[in-house]
């Protein structure tokens, strides 16, 4: 691993790329570029794009597997770039790339770093990589304190629960858990402050209030009791669940009984995997933004002859931006083309109330109004306000789906998938095109479940101190043979009984005993309703 500053050519390219980024007035953190060889690159990827990690068999296994696949020719060892955003950002280049490719990677990284700075989910944090390295040292210390056997056992249990990290969920910690101490609010694109406006400034008369807003005494009593219960729970436990919590790992990190060593491990694993949720929710916008700026900066570099090989670059670029069907979406292609389309719309003033209210089609077709500010400012505003879901919902039309070939399948693939002939709207010798109308709906559905079961904590005091999880049924069953080991791992972290309700089954794991009980099926909406009323969400 070496800094690009040790290579005069790369140092020059870095200087030129940053120069153009600044000329375009991009909002950038400090960026540090390093060059790695192939093995280091493989290792970096297995460490979650951080330079260090605590010893663990999972990384070892993945690394051994990856090396084997590379040796067997099943996987290419060529990785172009990876970047850990934040301030400073760390970007890693592959030593085998040509100078032109290194420049394009640097330009691409500019896009990612700016996106991380601007986005609505507030991805960029100070010293993220340094903080992880600090946590790694704490985990290494924890390893010595815990002993190898328990350390491995605890890590394995955590590994099992890593997919249950959801910091940007609608039901994240900030929205689900009341705590005594004020916690940092986790924001999401759908975040709406739940603080109610205070009426403290209004003239108050309790007599008039009682007359005008007559309240059922029972209700008032209930309300008082709920408030008291909440306060008592808060002072006893330090937290109170007020809504289902989907960020299960985050909850365990904050509220499971842990030793200092165990806490270090939970902190490390949560922080290391925390950004995955951000990537899932913003991949199209993020990669599109990076491609957009990569192209802009590269054209400048070609113009000033800082790099050569524009044909090679065009070949690589078109390969990266190759259209894929919607279910195997290529975020580079979709994001890049959508950003260009949006830029076009803004530059023609088509994203305005007047345009939408215009009823004359010919006027709409020939619409050209100068926007109030540069389109790029509007685009940056979009990054500050929405994630992929809203981005696609707002701008991806059936016409664009067709134009971007998101509904295009190879004939062979169409036969394999047994696509209905009725859904095919166009075909040629090689491809068929599906009706683009339902495609958008399918693409948006991805953001509700990310192809993963939705599991929530709904009670932290179920049957005397048990942790009760709820699987929100969406028509698919959970893999049954993994429920027991997963609950066992959860039990190790929670150090108390754990339960899972899935459809009409209650699974429990306590004192090394796994049990399955038939129960009445419960809907998620019912759970929500009961929790809002401060009732137990699920009773036996």
């Amino acid at each position, binding site marked *: 691993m070496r*800094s690009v500053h040790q290579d005069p050519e790369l140092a020059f390219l870095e200087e030129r790329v940053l120069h153009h980024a600044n000329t375009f007035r991009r909002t950038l953190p400090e960026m540090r570029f390093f060059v790695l060889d192939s093995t280091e690159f493989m290792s970096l990827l297995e460490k979650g794009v951080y330079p260090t990690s605590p010893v663990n068999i999972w990384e*070892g*296994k993945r690394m051994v597997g990856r090396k084997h696949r590379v040796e067997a020719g099943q996987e290419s060892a060529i990785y172009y770039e990876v970047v850990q955003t934040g301030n400073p950002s760390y970007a890693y280049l592959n030593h085998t790339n040509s100078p032109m490719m290194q420049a394009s990677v640097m330009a691409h990284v500019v896009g990612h770093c700016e996106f991380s700075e601007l986005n609505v989910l507030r991805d960029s944090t100070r010293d993220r990589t340094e903080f992880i390295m600090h946590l790694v040292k704490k985990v290494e210390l924890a390893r010595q304190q815990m002993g190898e056997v328990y350390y491995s056992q605890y890590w394995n249990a955590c590994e099992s629960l890593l997919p249950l990290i959801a910091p940007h969920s609608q039901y994240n910690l900030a929205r689900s858990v009341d705590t005594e101490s004020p916690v940092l609010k986790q924001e999401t694109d759908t975040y709406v402050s739940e603080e109610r406006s205070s009426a403290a400034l209004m003239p108050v008369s309790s007599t008039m209030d009682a007359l005008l807003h007559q309240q059922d005494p029972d209700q008032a009593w209930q309300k008082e009791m709920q408030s008291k219960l909440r306060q008592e729970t808060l002072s006893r436990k330090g937290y109170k669940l007020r809504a289902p919590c989907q960020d299960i790992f985050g909850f365990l990190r904050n509220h499971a009984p842990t030793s200092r060593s165990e806490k270090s491990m939970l902190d490390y694993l949560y922080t290391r995997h925390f950004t995955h949720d951000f990537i899932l929710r913003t991949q199209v916008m993020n990669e599109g933004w990076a491609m957009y700026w990569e192209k802009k900066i590269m054209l400048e570099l070609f113009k000033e002859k800082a790099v050569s090989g524009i044909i090679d670059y065009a070949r690589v670029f078109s390969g990266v931006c190759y259209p894929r069907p919607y279910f195997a979406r290529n975020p580079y292609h979709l994001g890049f083309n959508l950003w260009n389309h949006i830029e076009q719309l803004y530059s023609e003033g088509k994203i305005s109330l007047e345009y939408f209210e215009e009823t004359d089609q010919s006027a709409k077709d020939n619409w050209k109004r100068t926007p109030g500010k540069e389109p790029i400012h509007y685009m940056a505003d979009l990054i500050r306000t929405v994630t992929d879901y809203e981005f696609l919902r707002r701008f991806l039309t059936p016409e664009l789906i067709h134009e971007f070939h998101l509904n295009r399948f190879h004939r062979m693939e169409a036969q394999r998938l047994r696509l209905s002939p009725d859904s095919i709207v166009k075909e040629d010798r090689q491809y068929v095109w599906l009706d683009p109308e339902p495609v958008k709906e399918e693409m948006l559905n991805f953001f509700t479940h990310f192809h993963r079961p939705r599991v929530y904590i709904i009670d932290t005091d179920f049957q005397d101190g048990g942790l009760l999880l709820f699987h929100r049924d969406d028509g698919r069953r959970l893999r049954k043979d993994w429920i027991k080991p997963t609950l066992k791992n959860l039990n190790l972290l929670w150090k108390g009984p754990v339960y899972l309700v899935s459809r009409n089954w209650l699974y429990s794991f306590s004192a090394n005993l796994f049990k399955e009980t038939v129960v009445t099926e419960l809907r998620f909406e019912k759970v929500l309703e009961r929790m809002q009323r401060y009732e137990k969400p699920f009773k036996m």
Partner: protein
Amino acid sequence: MPLLDTDNISSNESEGAFNEFIEDQLENLVDSILTEGDLTSVGDRGSEVIVEIDDIVAPTFTYGDESEGGGAAGAGPGRDGGKIRFNVPFEFLMERIARSLRLPNLRKQGRGKIKEVTHEFKTFAPVGTVLDKKRTFKRALKTSIGMRVYRPEEGRHEVHIHRRDRRYKVPERVEKPKFKAVVFYMGDISFSTYGERLKLEKRLVGFIQHWIDFNYGAKNVEHRFFVHDADAHEVQEEDFYRVGNAGGTLAAPVYHLVQQVATNEYDPNTTNFYAFYFGDGELFDEDAKEIVELLEGQMRPIFNRIGIVEVQPGRLSLLNRQVATQFHRDSIIRLGELNDRLEAIEVIKTLFSER
């Protein structure tokens, strides 16, 4: 720009931890092989053994059925229907088995009497037929530096190879003691050897074959199989388990036959003899006494080890009892009783441990 406080990025420690984990798994595998007696299924003797262990996957809440899994098969670590496959050298596996059971290496006799002659290129000379290019180049480079032909600081990189710089590989005759072993397996076909009894016997014979091959090298061991009812015969290995007869039983003839084969066909001074008898032990009193005499007078002096294993013996079994009166805790003659597969490990220890 400050560099990160790490010089290179590496997963070596985690890979090491994973390899240690796999070794632990292999230890467990050894235990299961010994308990289950599956040694015959793990591969050919002397070759690499492909072992499968359960893949490690962190379970989580996910969609799917229990039957899901699969993927491309292939040697080396990788997923194959929830398994990871490894190529393990046969010696590696046997060493672990020996360590697990605390078995000593077999004591070999005949040292110095038979020599295995090989030629190894250990020495080098200025004349010969096989040129050692590396040594020749080293000497030529030294000479060229001494003669100032090779002077990189002046841009001269010539290396002159003179006749006296040439070095040739010279074969040297190397004699190594060669150990030879013959193993005799004796089986009682008059008792009902089928079902569980046959499985138990087969597993034990399989292990003995692997163990002696491992100690002497598969090429240096001859395995010979003998069966008896009222009479004794030599058979092929595959017939050892197949033939059966419901007649009377006389075991002494098979001991006679083995003793005669050992002394007539091999040189007892240079050969390591092993004999293992398997039967229910239900013999006539006189028959058992004759066996004891044979063991004492003719077999014990020339055999390295003789094992008598009663497989699922009955109330009337007396062979081991009779032999034990004469050879209790003997260093050569070992007596075992095998009732179920869980006892296999104890029997193996009895047969091969040192006293």
